[in-house]
């Protein structure tokens, strides 16, 4: 948990759960495992507030509890999970992916589960049906069965999983799939009903009926079975998308389709940390290709051999006819491309040339760098020193003599991909934290103006609802002067830009995180 990560987690907690939870959360992140009393004393918060915040954090999976260090008798200790809090940044991407895969129903299901941390299936189905009904036209409502089918599809493809059971002693079991065999089993619950539209005129009729239906659904039979979003599965999906688009841009559409087919076939069988996909025979690939790509068998073999020869993008290791995808190398290539583009954008194309040269040739002397990069000596020196001061390039000493005399040692420039990736990841976290702070600052500066505009919108809405004349409406609208309107417009534009930037930095964060994670598990 670096300082940048803790700062970013604090800001995310503050935005989504309030300042109290932020205080408790950052304290836990900085201090490691602590028990209830310690937290309350060290943060000077009343005990009940601490309890409330811890409930919120546990509900959302950001905090785990376990028995204390001194054995079963000692008080319960709480540990915050930094990674889990950082996932909050990626929520819009998860929801959008669910929408592209499973439509509006899937999108709402994932959104509800993300908002509440974990939910029972019946609860989710009810809320989502109500929300969908609310947006539908008059007289139509959403059947529970449709929502249930979307939910089951999400579970079958592992996007949703059961929360691990909590043992009596308060020790939470680790939530990896092996120890949770029923992870993806749907409970046997029959939910019959339709979404309810909340309208005031209908309420009096629905009173008696509504009460009875509510009592039935409450005792639904799936109490205690909670579902949460399976982030690892989503990450796998994003990674596959990244690989496919890289292949598509490097080679052509057909080869990307082949890669997509291979990835889809090994979707559920490959675990997230696997370096290779399952071996698939070329015949299977041929059969599973989508029908509109009617390529013949020899052409498929040609494409496969092309993919094997390709040093970037997806790499196939094959004895012929048993192609597998080396996902680890693919991720490494993607990360390297990211590093190169970062250097290019920040330092110019010639520095990027030097950087790429060093990545490929590993160790080079000063003179060799100048020669290979075809850059005049003075400028090359300048660029190298800039990169060195930014820590993107390192100096490696190789002594010729045992006494390490400086006149008799080689000084070589080198780039280490993994530490550089870590460095850039920390920069990304710092960037996002700065963006959030700037956004909060802008909002605070213009708080008065924002409140005024909200009040006027509320007045306008109520006037329109009660059918006022257009002159009254224009009169109310004129309460905001033109320069104020411009200021509001500029403010909204800035805030949208900052928000959008956070989303896009998060894409880089995802790539770098996946690469670093893939190198850890060997």
């Amino acid at each position, binding site marked *: 948990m670096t300082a940048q990560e803790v700062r970013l987690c604090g800001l995310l907690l503050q*935005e989504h759960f309030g300042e109290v939870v932020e205080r408790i959360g950052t304290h836990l992140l900085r201090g490691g495992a602590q028990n209830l009393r310690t937290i309350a004393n060290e943060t000077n918060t009343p005990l009940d*507030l601490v309890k409330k915040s811890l409930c919120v954090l546990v509900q959302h999976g950001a905090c785990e509890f376990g028995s204390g260090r001194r054995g079963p008798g000692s008080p319960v200790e709480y540990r915050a999970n930094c990674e889990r809090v950082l996932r909050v940044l990626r929520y819009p991407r998860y929801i*959008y992916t669910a929408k592209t895969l499973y439509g509006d129903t899937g999108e709402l299901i994932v*959104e509800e589960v993300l*908002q509440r941390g974990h939910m029972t299936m019946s609860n989710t189905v009810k809320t989502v049906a109500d929300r969908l009904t609310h947006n539908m036209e008059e007289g139509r409502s959403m059947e529970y069965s449709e929502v249930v089918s979307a939910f089951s599809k999400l579970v079958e493809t592992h996007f949703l999983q059961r929360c691990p059971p909590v043992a009596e002693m308060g020790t939470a079991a680790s939530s990896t799939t092996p120890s949770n065999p029923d992870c993806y089993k749907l409970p046997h619950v029959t939910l019959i009903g339709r979404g309810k539209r909340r309208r*005031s005129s209908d309420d009096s009729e629905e009173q008696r009926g509504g009460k009875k239906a509510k009592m039935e659904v*409450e005792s639904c039979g799936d109490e205690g079975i909670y579902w949460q979003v399976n982030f690892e599965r989503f990450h796998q999906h994003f990674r596959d998308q990244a690989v496919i688009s890289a292949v598509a841009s490097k080679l052509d559409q057909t080869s990307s389709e082949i890669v997509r087919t291979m990835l889809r076939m090994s979707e559920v069988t490959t675990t997230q940390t696997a370096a290779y996909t399952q071996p698939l025979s070329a015949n299977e690939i041929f059969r599973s290709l989508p029908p509109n790509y009617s390529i013949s068998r020899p052409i498929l073999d040609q494409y496969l051999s092309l993919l094997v020869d390709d040093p970037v993008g997806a790499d196939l290791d094959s004895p012929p006819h048993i192609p597998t995808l080396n996902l680890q190398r693919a991720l490494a290539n993607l990360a390297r491309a990211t590093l190169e583009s970062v250097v290019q954008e920040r330092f110019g194309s010639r520095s990027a040339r030097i950087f790429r040269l060093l990545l490929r040739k590993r160790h080079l002397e000063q003179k060799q760098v100048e020669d290979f990069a075809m850059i005049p000596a003075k400028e090359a020196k300048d660029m190298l020193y800039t990169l060195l001061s930014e820590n993107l390039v390192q*100096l490696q000493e190789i002594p010729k003599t045992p006494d390490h005399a400086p006149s008799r040692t*080689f000084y070589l420039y080198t780039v280490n991909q993994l530490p550089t990736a870590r460095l850039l990841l920390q920069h990304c976290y710092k960037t996002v934290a700065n963006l959030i702070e700037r956004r909060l600052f802008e909002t605070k500066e213009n708080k008065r103006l924002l409140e005024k505009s909200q009040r006027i919108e509320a007045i306008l809405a109520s006037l329109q609802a009660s059918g006022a004349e257009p002159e009254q409406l224009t009169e109310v609208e004129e309460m905001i002067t033109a320069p104020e309107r411009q200021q509001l417009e500029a403010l909204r534009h800035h805030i949208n830009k900052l928000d959008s930037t956070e*989303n896009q930095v998060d894409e880089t964060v995802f790539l770098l995180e996946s690469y670093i994670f893939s190198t850890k598990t060997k």
Partner: protein
Amino acid sequence: MAGLGRGRGRGKGYMSFSIEAVGIGKGENLPPSILQPTPLFPPMEHKPVPLVMGEEAEYMLALKQEFRGNMKTLPFYVRQAVSKKDVERYSDKYQNSEPSDNTIEWNPDWKRLPKELRIRVKKPLKENTSLSVDTPVDPKPSKKTRVDKEEIIHKLETLEKKEEEVTSDEGEKKKQEEEQQDGEEEYDEEEFEEETDYIMSYFDNGEEFGGDSDDNMDEAIY
């Protein structure tokens, strides 16, 4: 960095390694050493790449802002209780009370949390019972109160049938009250309106007294 000079007239600086190897020629002008932290917003030589704009980016932006807005309304957004004002007001009983520290506004599954984290669950005001109920909340007490109400309703109905002098007005009123007791969240305010003698929208705190009347300017305002 390389070692400091032991310099007695050794020139610009003496480093422990021969700087020719790293590429600095003899007698060359090195940039001056920096003696303060880098500026907060250094000038950028290369402009950053413009943001990706498009349908997908805009949709995700809207999702993000909506999500943030929704989280602020959910009970997971913990707000510290504001300390009460000087005197207890009559209106406090009928207006939305601020969240208090020692109750929790949602109902977690207590089996998944350690026992020490249990606090009272705040019962919503519509139940017409006391504001907070002791641990833990089961459906039983609410069912009990409902059952009690139903019994009372039955009793009332039988009493109505027995008494022939009960006027139609009274009967209707009781039926209205029964319906409202059966009623759900929407009739929150109206229930309270029934109980008080005052119409809620007309209720005046009395805090704006003295600032309104501009009619008699010649009379001094004390």
